């Protein structure tokens, strides 16, 4: 403290003041995940005093899940477009176009990488929220959206890679559990799911599968 020429408080009062709203340890990873999710979902939002920002300040936790759902919807639509785009015409005399498979494979790999990045962010936030004792009533809705995208990818050429297929299959089980969370058994189920996440190393596998920079690509709206 410098530049203070006023008489300071008595030591007893000063110590008591330091106990006022004493901050706990900073939840760095949870916060970072929330920030990333918001930024991924709102790439062009100018964060001023817009109505959207005001809503965010009133119910940010709701918005985090909502933003996640919106991002996942966008990703799902993107994959849907790819599916439509690459489906070959059902003609007996059709001849394959030599350059198309390589380009389509790359597109599917990109879609898969972004999906895994979203799943990793979602599960990280989900696990952190459960550990902090929050009742994430909107998590099942986000999980259902991820599940839909996951199934699209399992049916796509991306799943011809056996490692990716196994990862998507394992991810499907976790997402299905979260999607089906029942309100009356929520507490026990949440613990089973988060224990399972730790036991199976799902987050580590997802992180290993997501190439660096995928988040930046998603923010730029590739899909």
């Amino acid at each position, binding site marked *: *403290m*410098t*530049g*203070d*020429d*006023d*008489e*300071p*408080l*008595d030591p*007893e*009062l*000063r110590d*008591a*003041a*330091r*106990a*006022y*709203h004493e*901050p*706990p340890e*900073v*939840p*760095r990873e*949870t*916060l*970072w995940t*929330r*920030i990333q999710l*918001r*930024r991924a979902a709102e790439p062009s*939002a*100018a*964060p*001023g*005093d817009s109505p959207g*920002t*005001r809503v*965010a*300040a*009133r119910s*940010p*936790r709701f918005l985090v899940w909502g933003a996640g759902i919106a991002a996942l919807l966008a990703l799902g639509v993107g994959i849907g477009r790819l599916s439509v785009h690459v489906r070959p015409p059902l003609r007996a005399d059709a001849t394959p176009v030599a350059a198309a498979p390589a380009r389509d494979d790359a597109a599917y790999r990109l879609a898969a990488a972004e999906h895994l990045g979203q799943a990793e962010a979602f599960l990280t936030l989900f696990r952190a929220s459960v550990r*902090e004792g929050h009742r994430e009533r909107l998590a099942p809705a986000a999980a259902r959206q991820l599940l839909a995208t996951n199934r699209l990818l399992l049916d796509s050429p991306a799943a011809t890679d056996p490692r990716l297929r196994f990862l998507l299959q394992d991810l499907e089980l976790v997402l299905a559990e979260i999607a089906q969370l029942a309100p009356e058994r929520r507490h026990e189920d949440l613990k089973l799911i988060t224990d399972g996440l730790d036991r199976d190393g799902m987050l580590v596998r997802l992180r290993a599968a997501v190439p*660096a*920079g995928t*988040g*930046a690509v998603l923010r*730029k709206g590739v899909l």
Partner: protein
Amino acid sequence: MDDRHLISRVQAGDASAERELYDTHVERVYRLVYRLAGDADQAQDYTQETFIRAFGRLGEFRGEAALGTWICSIAVSVALNGLRRGKRLRTREVALDEAATAATPDRAAEPDLRDRLARAIDALPEGYRVVFLMHDVEGYTHEEIGRTLGVQTGTSKAQLSRARARLRRALADFARG
């Protein structure tokens, strides 16, 4: 690392620079907004909003103050706006609660020093409270407070002095022993 260099890396889309910026400043931001809000959920919300705004407005940073000071000024603005909104909502709720519990006697005859001080800090005018918490509790200098809040250093000193005087008056019986 130089703020300018870090900012240019963030603006070029370098994800590790974003994380570096976050890691450098999150502790200070979270502590400050927690002191103001006193609630973990609100502190997380305000911290999140602060960094969303900071990343979105990095192009507006002119370098007139340190990057940390600029981010803290966003944090204070976000937190105070959020708290004002919450206060307006609570005022309506409290009016209803008070009507329902008007006959309930005081729950504590002699609260301890921390409780009394906490109430006295809560009762300070907003400007006094922010300066007091930043200076006497979180250890900011008057120069930092002035740049963060956009006020003169002398104003910060005057508000701190008045805040301390009010707290001394509110807790005079403790001081007398």
